[in-house]
Structure formats: C-alpha cells, structure tokens
C-alpha cells in the first residue's frame, strides 16, 4: 500500500497542494439479529477504499473511490485538488492554516482478548436465541430482539508532512430487548442498554462479561410490568440518573457542544452550533464543583479510543470541565490554530469515503464519592431513571429533553413504585450546576455508542462515555400530556 499512498502524495505535491493526506480504509463487519425466536439477519460486509484530502490555495478539497489502483489514485488526487480550487472561489478572508503536528511513522492495534471473528457464528446465534427463549414466556411481549455485531477496521494514514500510520481497531457489541404491548400501551426494556446494547473497542470478552442470559427474564418481566405501572408524575423534583442514561446526557449536552467545529459554525446548516462560545473558555461555570468531565481517547476498551486521529495526531486525555469550570474543546488542526492551540486529536472520519470532522472520543463524567444507595437514602422526593428511550436537544445544545425506559419513585429515602414513560427536561448548564452527588469508581461504567450522527454527507461515529449514577436537584420531570 505504501506505493499507492506515496503516489497520491507525490501527485498532490506536484499539483501544488500545500498539504494533503490519504487514508486507505478496509472495514469488515458481522451482524447478527434475532427476533422472536428466528435469525432475522445474519450478514457480513466488507468495504474498502481510499479518500484524499487536499489543501490548495488555502481551501479544502476531498475525493474518494473504492477502486484501489494506481491510476485511480492519481485521478482522485487530481480531483481533490480541482475540488479545492472550486472551494477557493468562495473562500474565507483568510486561508486555512493547520496547527503543527510531529510527523509519525507508527502502528497501533487495539487490545483484544478474544477475536470476535474467531468465535463460531453458531455459538453467537445460539446465545442470542437462548436469550430470546428466556424472554418468551409472557404473552404481552410482542417483539423480542437480540443483536450482536463486531467490526474490524484496518486503516493507513499518510500525509505530505511525512506521517505514515497503520491502525487496526476491533469493536464488539451486543444487547437484548423486549417490547410489550397490551390494551393501548406499549413499553420496552433493554439490556445492557437500548439501541443495540453496549459496545467497546474490545473482543468477544465484552459479550461474555454482559451475561445476557442472566438478564433476559428480567428484561421481559419489566417490559410487561411497565404496561400497568404508574405514569411518571409531572413536576419539579430531584432526579437520580443511572449510568447508561447519564452516558447519553453527557453525549448530547457536553460532548457535542465542546466540538470546536460546531462552535465555529461549521455544522450550522445541519446539526447546529454551540452555546459554549470561545469567550467562555476557562471561565464559564458549566456545572457544579462536583462535575469533572474528561475526553480520553486512550481509555482501554473505550469505543472512542484509538492510537492516532485521522490527521495523525496522537490520542490524548484532556480535561473538559474541571470542578465545574469549562476548560477545553475537542479540536482539529485547523480549529485549534484559530485558538492559538495545537490539536488535541479529535478528527475522525466514518470510513474511506468521508472527510475527518471533529468527533467525540470517550467523554466521561469522573466518579465522585457517593454510592447509589446513599443517594437514594439522602433523597426525600425524587425519581430514579434508567436506560434511554428518546433524546432531543436544541441546535445550540441548551434545551434538552430525554425519555427513559423506566423509573422508580423515591420517597423519604426509599425506592418506591415503578413508573412508566419517564421524561425530564432542562437547560444544559443549569442542569449540570444542579448536580450534587456522583457515585464512585465501583459504580462507574464505560458505555459505547455506535450511532453518533454528524456532518453532511452523514457520518456515524463510534464514541464512548463513562459515568456512575448521579443526582441532580430540582429538575422538571414528566413533560407533556400523557
């Protein structure tokens, strides 16, 4: 492959590109989905191609192709430059400048204990069907789903600055869910979390650790119990959020607004911008003193972990919010330069045919020193919510609303009745400022979200979030008319 990457870089230089890079990416995935006792999908896919970025006359161009030949590489490199020239006709008042990065020749491989592709497909199918059987006893359960997937990505990155980086990343995920319906009500429960379960940059060991069979009966039972559970009350009360829902809360209300490309308006036409404008950097009280949030691309097992980002910047751990104060953005070489910084390595592309854009790594709420039990005992009037069902946030990432699969009321320090259709809403910084208790390391879990959408054309990123349960005071819950 080195001949092909070198050819691309030579052409880019010949044509006068001030910077250029090429990524050759091959992705292999296997997906298994069971539904109501049947194998609903058993598929594998393979995609390979390359993408070339060119910076010419201070503007960007990108082209890509799945035909991996020298001729095609030359054509695509030329087209990337032609597209950059077109970009330069509607240019900013200043050229794109990239903050410096040390050229690297390296190879990185994600740690894997059990290669998920080496596990017999029959065994994976059997596990999901066994879990399905354990969810099948209740007539109200209309849809039972089991899902498992694994992915291996082999990537080569080479730049005109001299970097040549090879990376191999293996990811695995699995989950189960039961949907119950009866007399005009429909409820769902999932394990370990919703929308395809949990994912990690790891091998089949993560599936074994999940112990899906130990949870299948409970998932089915709770889905049915929710059908006749009390409706979540409306009002302002204390809210304790479980680790998996908190992962999505962090994702939407911290992970996205700290993307510096959003702050600079580069996503304005689609996903929106950010309330965390640059004058807030270093001074803005994002949350309470309890709240420390990190972005850590080096976290073992994190779905947002890697060796180098797609600009060849090494993976890093960055403090985003330090005891409540907003300290850092996620940056690229281009955006970091605007702030007089160097990139902290957050540029990733969804495959060979997309440009890198700023993506979350593993954005985590650092553990506190409470336990969930202590929080419940310390709460007079509130609810405990678990497992995401719906999410929505405005285009500056301020006003959010989440729905969860399940909740329990908390009265005078004790967990009470199960509640259905829980929702809560708030304004991001007011919400995080109301956080007064975070559970400790023992209850801290790392979640992988394989479905973070951003960009045009659309890109899906795999990102991670660590969290332990936390309490938020006086939150509006039970939104809307049910």
């Amino acid at each position: 492959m080195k001949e092909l990457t070198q050819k691309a870089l030579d052409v880019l230089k010949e044509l006068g590109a001030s910077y250029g890079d090429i990524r050759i990416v091959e992705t292999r995935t296997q997906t298994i989905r069971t539904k109501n006792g049947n194998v609903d999908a058993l598929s594998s896919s393979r995609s390979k191609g390359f993408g070339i970025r060119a910076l010419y006359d201070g503007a960007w161009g990108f082209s890509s192709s799945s035909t991996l030949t020298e001729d095609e590489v030359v054509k695509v490199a030329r087209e990337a430059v032609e597209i950059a020239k077109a970009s330069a006709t509607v240019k900013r008042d200043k050229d794109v400048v990239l903050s410096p990065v040390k050229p690297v020749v390296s190879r990185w491989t994600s740690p894997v204990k059990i290669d998920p592709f080496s596990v017999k497909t029959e065994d994976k199918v059997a596990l999901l069907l066994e879990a399905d059987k354990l969810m099948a006893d209740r007539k109200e359960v209309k849809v039972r789903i089991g899902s498992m997937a694994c992915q291996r990505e082999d990537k080569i990155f080479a730049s005109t600055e001299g970097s040549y980086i090879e990376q191999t990343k293996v990811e695995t995920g699995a989950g189960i869910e039961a949907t119950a319906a009866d007399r005009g009500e429909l409820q769902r429960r999932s394990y370990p979390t919703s929308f395809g379960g949990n994912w990690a940059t790891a091998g089949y060991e993560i599936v074994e650790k999940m112990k899906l069979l130990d949870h299948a009966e409970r998932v089915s039972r709770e889905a049915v119990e929710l059908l006749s559970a009390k409706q979540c009350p409306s009002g302002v009360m204390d809210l304790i959020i479980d680790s998996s829902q908190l992962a999505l809360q962090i994702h939407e209300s911290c992970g996205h607004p700290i993307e510096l490309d959003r702050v600079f308006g580069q996503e304005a036409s689609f996903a929106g911008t950010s309330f965390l404008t640059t004058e807030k950097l270093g001074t803005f009280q994002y949350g309470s003193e309890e709240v420390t949030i990190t972005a850590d691309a080096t976290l073992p097992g994190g779905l947002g972990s890697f060796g180098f980002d797609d600009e060849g910047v090494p993976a890093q751990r960055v403090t985003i919010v330090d005891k409540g104060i907003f300290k850092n953005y996620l940056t690229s070489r281009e955006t970091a330069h605007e702030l007089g910084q160097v990139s902290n390595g957050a540029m990733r592309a969804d495959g060979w045919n997309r440009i890198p854009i700023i993506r979350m790594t593993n954005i985590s709420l650092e553990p506190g020193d409470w336990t969930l039990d202590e929080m419940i005992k310390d709460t007079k009037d509130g609810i405990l919510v678990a497992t995401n069902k719906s999410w929505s946030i405005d285009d500056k990432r301020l006003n959010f609303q989440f729905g969860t699969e399940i909740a329990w009321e908390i009265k005078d320090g004790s967990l009470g009745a199960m509640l259905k259709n829980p929702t809560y809403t708030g304004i991001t910084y007011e919400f995080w400022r109301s956080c007064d208790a975070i559970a400790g390391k023992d209850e801290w879990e790392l979640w992988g979200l394989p479905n973070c959408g951003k960009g045009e054309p659309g890109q899906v990123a795999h990102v991670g979030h660590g969290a332990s349960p936390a309490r938020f005071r006086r939150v509006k819950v039970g939104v809307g008319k049910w």
Partner: protein
Amino acid sequence: MVDKKPLGRENALEVIDKLIHWSPGDLTEVVLRSDSTALTRFTKNYIHQNVAERDYTVTVRVIFGKKIGSVTTNFLHDDSLKEAVEDAAAIAKLQPPNEEFEGLPEPEPLPDVDCFVPETDSFSAKSRALAVKEVVEVAKERGFEASGAFSTGTMELAVGNSRGVRAYNVSTYAALSTVMMGADGSGYAEASGRDVREIRPGEVARIARDKCAMAQNPVSIAAGEYEVVLEPLAVAMLLSYLGRAGFSALAVREGRSFLTGRLGQKLFDEKFNMWDDGLDPRGFPIPFDLEGVPKRKVTLVENGVAKELVYDYNTAKKEGRKSTGHGGFRGWGPMPVNLFMGEGTATLEEMIRSTKRGILVTRFHYTNMAHPLKVLITGMTRDGTFLIEDGYITKAVKNFRFTESALRVFSTLDMIGRETVRVERTVVPAIRVPAFNFTGVTEF
C-alpha cells in the same frame, strides 16, 4: 468519483446474473447500488468542506429453505463476488430456519419512470461553487452569514432474484439548503429534486434571508398550548413520524402501531388525506423497491379514515396480499417513504389571519419519538419562529420545545394550505392547528 460513468443496465444486470448463477442456494437475491455523489458545504459565507465519492455496494442473500445468509461487499471483481456468494451460503447454513420467511417475489412488469437528468449527473464542483456564491451574495446584502450544503448525485439501483426479478434504475438528485444567520436570529430554506435546473439558488437564498430578517430580536414568551400555523417543513416531519409509526403492515401485526385493530376507523380530521406514491413526479419517483417489486400508490388516510397499509413481500404473503412495493428494510418491515398529504383551500396568509394568538413555525429540529403508540414527538422549533396576534405576525420569538402527538395534530387541524411543497421525499402543505403543546423555551 473520478470515473463518473454509471455501470449501466447491462453491466449491473450481468453482475446480478453471475451471482445468481454461482449461488448454491434454493433462492438467491442480489441488490446492487452504485453511488456517485458530491457535496459542497459552506459556513459563514465561505466553502469549508467540498467532497466527492464513488462507490459500489452489492448485497447477496443466499437462502436454503428458510435459512438466509447475507453478505455485502464493495468489490465487483469476480473473485470477490464469488467469495461473497460462498460466504453468504456458509453463514446461511449456520443457523436454524427463520420461520417468518415467506420467500422472494416473482417478476412483475415495472413502470417506466425516468429518474435520470443528465444535467444533474454532470453538475461540477465549479457549478456548485457558483451556486453557493449566489447564496452568499444574497446573505451579504443584509449583513447575514449563510451556511448550507449543495449536493448532487447519481445512483444506480439494480435488484434481481433467482425467481426471475430483474430491475434496474438510474436516478439523479440535487439538494440545496441554507441557514442564514443574523445577530440573534436565523432563517432557513431548501429545495430539492431530480433535476438540478429546478433549484434556483437565488430564490432559496432570498426566502432564507427574508426569514432571517424577520427572525431578529426574538422575545421569550412562556411555553404552553398555542394555536399554530406549521409551514410545510414542519408538517413533513410530523407526517413522516405518523407514516413510519402507523402504516407498516409489520408494525400493525406486531402491535407496535396505533393502527393495530383500528384500520377502517376515522382517526383524523375529515379534511386529512395521506397517501404514499413512489411514482408521482412531484416527489422523488422511483419505479420499484429494494425487492424489485413495482411501487404502488397506497391510500393511507382518506377523509380522515385510516384505509390501507404498506406491505413488503413477506408481510403481504402472510395476509394473502400483493406487496405494495415498500420492501427491503429487512427486520424493520415495510415503510412508507414517499408520503403525500392532500392540499386544502387556504393560503398561508389566511391561516395567519385566522389565528388570534398563536405561533408560526418554520421548521422543527432534532425530533424524537417519545411514545410510538401515541405518536408523541418531542423536538425544537428552529430558524424562524414567530408570534401571531390578532391575525398578524407581530414579532419573532425564542425557540420552543414541543411535546405533542402527531395523532392529535392531524385529528384537530382546522385549515390546510392549498399549495403543496416537496420536502425531500415528502410532499405536504402548510396547516393550522387550534391547539399545540409547547413544553419549554430555550435561550435564543
């Protein structure tokens, strides 16, 4: 991207023939796509991203009895294709039979729909940049900043199976959208179609600019129940949720739809009509679905009565029906993807004049389903939200969060616009609804 020449019908069908010939399965299905797409993205009046792509995707399903293996590859060499068939056959054999599987469709005559516009296919990066320049110039006239995207592309879709289905289509699309931003408000407009010549960048820009101008200096008003006038972009979003949540035959059979046990009932206002038509040139026509079955028009709601559902081959076979050409989404079941809502008699101005104290919504943002049986949706307003008082727009307001049921919206609407607008694959008018729940307010 570089070699923009499509595969062509003969080459595409040859790939399908080869795969079916090599397959050891009792049944075999092949779906082939080629995509040649480009997109120019701009922010704050300059182009910041500009991309192009060319790819092929072949998915082969090999079936033994009711055991199905599926492999997708983007390699079209014979060796890779043979490997794909062998792998699909191998993984099919590793599983128990899927008792829900009903087979593959037989060939049917396909409608002749011209979806290809050469001018769209050959639209260049330079042409897109010129269009963006036009949008930017309009923004600059008022000191606004334009962001947006202009995309064009050509897609080939070929479907074949061992029962004789052979379907091929080549289509083009073009889309321009822009958000224009002023000091403290924004406006939005978009246009799309198969023919890039129908997109007039200046017109799109002027609509966004005028909205943006009106949207400045927004005031915050309390959330609550308001009369609303929803412009087509907002209506299209609600209609899509309604279609997907309710009108899939699989969702109804599994009890996931609000129509389970209620088909034939009057669930909506009698002025409300909704149908799916993949052949109507006012939308994004395409002659067949991902199973190679011809698209059929399906009347979903007639005069407020829920009439019919959309079917794929599997759900149709189970009920002794014919597929309506809405298949290929596998486990998700059939889905209506070319929705139309019938027009009414009102102008937008008449709807505003009929509103005592209400909100005019340009579009919604980041919506999500809070409860599928209630079709309860939450989301934000965006890019032009205005207060109507005594029949006139009086001021811009800060954006609201809404938490509202689409069932309630379409059963209580009292005015429907007389003009329909294409919003991607959906064609809708504006509507007026006497009571709509806004449950929160944001800071801008």
